[in-house]
């Protein structure tokens, strides 16, 4: 009843962000500001793709904004060792305020329906960005386990002192991991605006960043499983839209709640996070 391409398309924003967040969390940094990062990128992508008429430049703009945002919050969480939940919450607030304000100023208050340039489909309903997502998920799964860089990332998330003892900088490794996370969160937000919604509204991300964080736990901190779990949520989202059309007697609000309930159930049945990186959420002070 539902084709894989549309499930993957609905899954992609959460999928990109979840794969990126996995890398950051493996390095010990949890990005509660993922929601705000996605929103800022979605907005940057909206503005740039509208002015240049190119969806690709929109995606690139989203990625750049994603990296910049994650580096900025990295300064607070990694260098200044501030609480990651507080920094993320502040980032979410500020992003919502900034995007809302700029959108209101540049595009008029409400009502105006934007129509962003679409990505060309290469095969079936699949576009190139979706291919990139699958490649990223697969490549990062291997890189995290097999490469030296992956080992460093995992060390900085499990036992950062060991990384420092081996002569590497924990902060630098965390910044590298966090910027990969930001890059992918940026692509996720931009893809939501360009590939899924085709439009922008300040409240459009509505919890997808948090769903991505939830999925990382369920996927046991493995990028490829993060993508699979995102497809599960993506399935519920496309199911929700389809039910809205076929079953108009069912209250719309209950259907909209479906993906959130599904994510919560996923969390309940994924049980305790025994595989969680041991130093997740803990700032590293150095051995001195």
């Amino acid at each position, binding site marked *: 009843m539902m084709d894989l391409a549309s499930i993957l398309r609905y899954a992609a924003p959460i999928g990109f962000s979840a794969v990126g967040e996995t890398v950051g969390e493996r390095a010990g940094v949890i990005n*509660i500001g993922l929601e705000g990062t996605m929103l800022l990128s979605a907005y940057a992508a909206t503005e740039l793709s509208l002015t240049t008429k190119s969806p690709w430049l929109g995606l690139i703009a989203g990625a750049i904004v994603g990296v910049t945002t994650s580096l900025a919050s990295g300064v*607070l969480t990694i260098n*200044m*060792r*501030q609480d990651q*939940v*507080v*920094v993320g*919450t*502040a*980032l*979410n*607030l*500020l*992003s*919502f*305020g*900034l*995007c*809302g*304000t*700029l959108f*209101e*100023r540049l595009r008029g*208050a409400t009502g105006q329906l934007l129509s962003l340039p679409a990505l060309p489909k290469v095969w079936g309903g699949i576009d190139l960005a979706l291919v990139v997502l699958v490649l990223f998920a697969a490549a990062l799964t291997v890189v995290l386990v097999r490469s030296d860089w992956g080992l460093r990332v995992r060390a900085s998330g499990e036992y950062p002192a060991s990384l420092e003892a081996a002569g590497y900088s924990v902060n630098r490794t965390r910044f590298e991991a966090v910027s990969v996370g930001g890059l992918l969160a940026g692509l996720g937000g931009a893809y939501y605006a360009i590939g899924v919604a085709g439009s922008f509204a*300040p409240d459009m991300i*509505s*919890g997808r960043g*948090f*769903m991505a*964080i*939830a999925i990382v*736990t369920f996927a046991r901190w493995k990028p490829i499983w993060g993508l699979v779990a995102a497809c599960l949520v993506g399935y519920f989202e496309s199911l929700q839209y389809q039910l809205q059309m076929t079953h108009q007697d069912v*209250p719309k*609000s*209950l259907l*909209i*709640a479906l993906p*959130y*309930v599904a*994510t*919560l159930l996923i*969390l*309940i049945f994924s*049980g*305790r*996070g025994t595989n969680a990186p041991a130093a997740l959420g803990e700032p590293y002070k150095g051995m001195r």
Partner: protein
Amino acid sequence: MKTLVVAVLGLLGILVIGLIVTGVAPATGFKLLLEGAFSDQFAVSQSLVRATPLLLAGLGVTVAWKAGVFNIGGEGQLLIGAVFGASTAQLLFKLGIPLVGTVLVLVSSVLGGAIWAGVAAWLSIKRGVNLVISTILLNFIGLQLLLFGVDGPLRRKGQSAPMTEQLPDSWMLWKPSRQTDLHVGVLLAILVAVAIGVFLFRTRSGYLVRATGANPRFVRANRINPSAIQLRVMLLSGGLCGLAGGIQFLGINGQLTPSFSQQYGFLAIPVALVGGLHPLGVTVSSFFFGALFAGTSNLSRFGGSGSYFVYIVQGLAVFGLLGYRFVKDRQVEFAQ
């Protein structure tokens, strides 16, 4: 004293930045903000009634965070509290018991908020579900439940618009004047703040709450289960957020609509942080942000833009606070 000066100057700076981003000339902007918050009796009452839900939910956030429980779900708890309150009002309305009814509506809104927070606490303790994530998800689910309620079982008879029955004045919270929105809930919220202050700093349970946040292992070493404390704290926190919803329902609206929430439950987090997670500080900061809210509605009405001004200011205020804390901690380190 020095902290106060830094705080005031910092907030002024943040307001200026916020106004520039919003595209309003700072001088005009300040004038509009001040007029909206303080120019006459009505403006002052607006500031006070907008501070009330922020204060109650901010206290809810405070007790939870004090115990090391990151309850981000104030918004959902506030909404479910309001839904419980409105349901109770609808059930009891025919009985014609205005004053008792008012109390029962408030009690049920406390219950609603506590249940919603209890779900997250229970999931966290029994299934190890991250509380930050579950409370956020429950915010979204709570909002959809409210929308379901006002467009379904709670909808006004013979109406197609999504709104509940309008309660008569006799059921609402007492108002000293018909010209303003000021209601007795403002006073109630301040009393609750005092009670929470006494609880946290003058009782054994309050001490255990703070100890759990500071060092759960210490609590465990004294053969007290920190999980049990965290569960109870979440119930209290949710109850306070639910009360915020109930008071908003009985003080201002008298009915639920899809736009009932002004995100008070979510904005209470920065209110609590800026207030230093102390009931007195939270009271001060909630009145500051309440005034800012009232000023902002004036700003967006006459200044062209600014409906998102509060979010920018709150975000910047928390960042400013973090920066200030960082500098202060470094000074302490250098002094050692």
